[in-house]
């Protein structure tokens, strides 16, 4: 799969990339702010978009909203977030496919993504 990862924390991005590329065998492109995430998501051809919620320029929820409005064929969006309050979770599930709570375990990251994608297909 070709995945776009938007995450402002450099270390977390590195870990996520390692897990997704080395263990999941995916191809990952990484951006570090919301504005770039939106540009690349609209320009590139990805199978999945992973969005951090708290990012510089534009936050994750807003990026997702704009992406879905502007894209002709929007791809599934999954949020990565440390916010796990009920209201936040509902917003993630309403706008995107779902969310993966931080701190996440890189060993099970691929599995979580597969589960979320399957739940959508079902």
């Amino acid at each position: 799969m070709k995945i776009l990862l938007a995450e402002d924390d450099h270390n977390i991005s590195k870990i996520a990339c390692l897990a997704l590329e080395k263990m999941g065998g995916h191809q990952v492109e990484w951006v570090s702010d919301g504005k770039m995430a939106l540009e690349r998501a609209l320009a590139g051809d990805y199978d999945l978009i992973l969005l951090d919620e708290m990012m510089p320029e534009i936050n994750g929820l807003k990026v997702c909203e704009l992406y879905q409005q502007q894209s002709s064929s929007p791809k599934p969006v999954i949020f990565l977030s440390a916010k796990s309050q009920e209201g936040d979770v509902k917003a993630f599930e309403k706008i995107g496919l779902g969310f993966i709570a931080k701190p996440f375990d890189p060993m099970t990251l691929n599995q979580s993504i597969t589960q979320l994608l399957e739940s959508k297909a079902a």
Partner: protein
Amino acid sequence: MKSIRGKLFIILSFLFALSLGLNFFSYLSFMELKSKREQIQLGNQLELELSQLPSNLKANATQLNSLKKLNQRLTPPLRKAGVSEMLTHLEKRRTGTFKKHLKTFKTNETEFRRFNLNRMDYLEKKVLFLMGLGAVFLIFGFAALHILFKHLVIVPIRNLSSKMLDFLHNRYTYQFGSPSNDEIGHLHANFNSLAQRVISHTDELKSLDQAKSDFLSIASHELRTPLTSIKGSLSLLKGGMGGELNEVTTELLGIAETESDRLIRLINDLLDLAKIEAGKLPLSTIWVPVDDLIKTTFNSLQGLAQSASVELVYENAAQNVQVMIDKDRIQQVLTNLMSNAVKFSPKGDCVIAKVILIENEGIRFEIKDHGKGIDPEDQKLIFQKFRQASGPNNPIVKGTGLGLAIAKALVEEHQGEIGLKSKPGEGSTFFFTLKEWRFASTHPVVEAS
């Protein structure tokens, strides 16, 4: 005179002086009226007694005495002198002279009566007039007093009261104008100062509350972000991302991972507690069957119980009961109390969860273990933050030290009570109560979506 008291004093003194004057004049007239009537009566009495004298006009001593007594009370002096001269003639038996005097006396009396009856008529009218005038003044006085009172007291108090209501309902729209310089004006000014103080304090509290919310959200993000990297790296290393690991490295990585997990739990617990204490944790309550609640908790603790060789026992003395709760939160409380009970139980023992229905109190959950028990001194502290019962009898069991504080806060958020009964050496029973409950038989459970 600026004060209401002064104004009321002036108008009341005026009314008092007026009524005093009127009363004085009508009293004078009334007294005059009374004395006139008395004099006329005396004259009549005299005439009557004189007419009762024997025909030879020889009065006996008793008759003379009575006549003299009457004479003493006569006014005016001229009238009195005339009668006393007549009585002297009577006493000295000068019949002729006496008869002449008697005739004059009768003529004078007729004249006296006629004149005085006119005067009495006039006095009666005067008294009536003064009384009427008094009544009119009284009515006008009261009307004036009422208007003044309304204007100076009632209306300003009503205005102030409506401003207070405005303030109470958070309508700060009114102007803080300058109030009048009297007692109610001062009250008004004081209220204005009070309101401004309250408004500024409220603003201050709001900004403090906002600061606390901001802190919570920043802390949760800033603390979790580095931990995400630490935990992720450890997990990848342990998973063999960096190549084969020897035994010692694996063990050390395990320790680092366990401790970072503990740090994450601690952060989550602290943030939970801060949220509950700030009232920022809204409860979404539904009716939940008590049986389901206990069974779900048992299932989640099965692993822990098995590894500790402890049996979980459920005793329900309140069949078919549902409670109105936030299921996740009460589950959290039960899990906390039960996992504590399992941790402190000796191997091969059992932990008993009991549900009891108590009238006027609600549903009571009891978690009983047969561990070492808790010292009475520790019992007081155990629900406080970062307190764990420790000491020679109690090995420290790993935890954040916040579990019971969170349990307490959550139960209290449900308007319930939490506590424990324990004797060292005889185990502990932790309990909590829930107020809102009902029997399930008449209400089928509707699962919340």
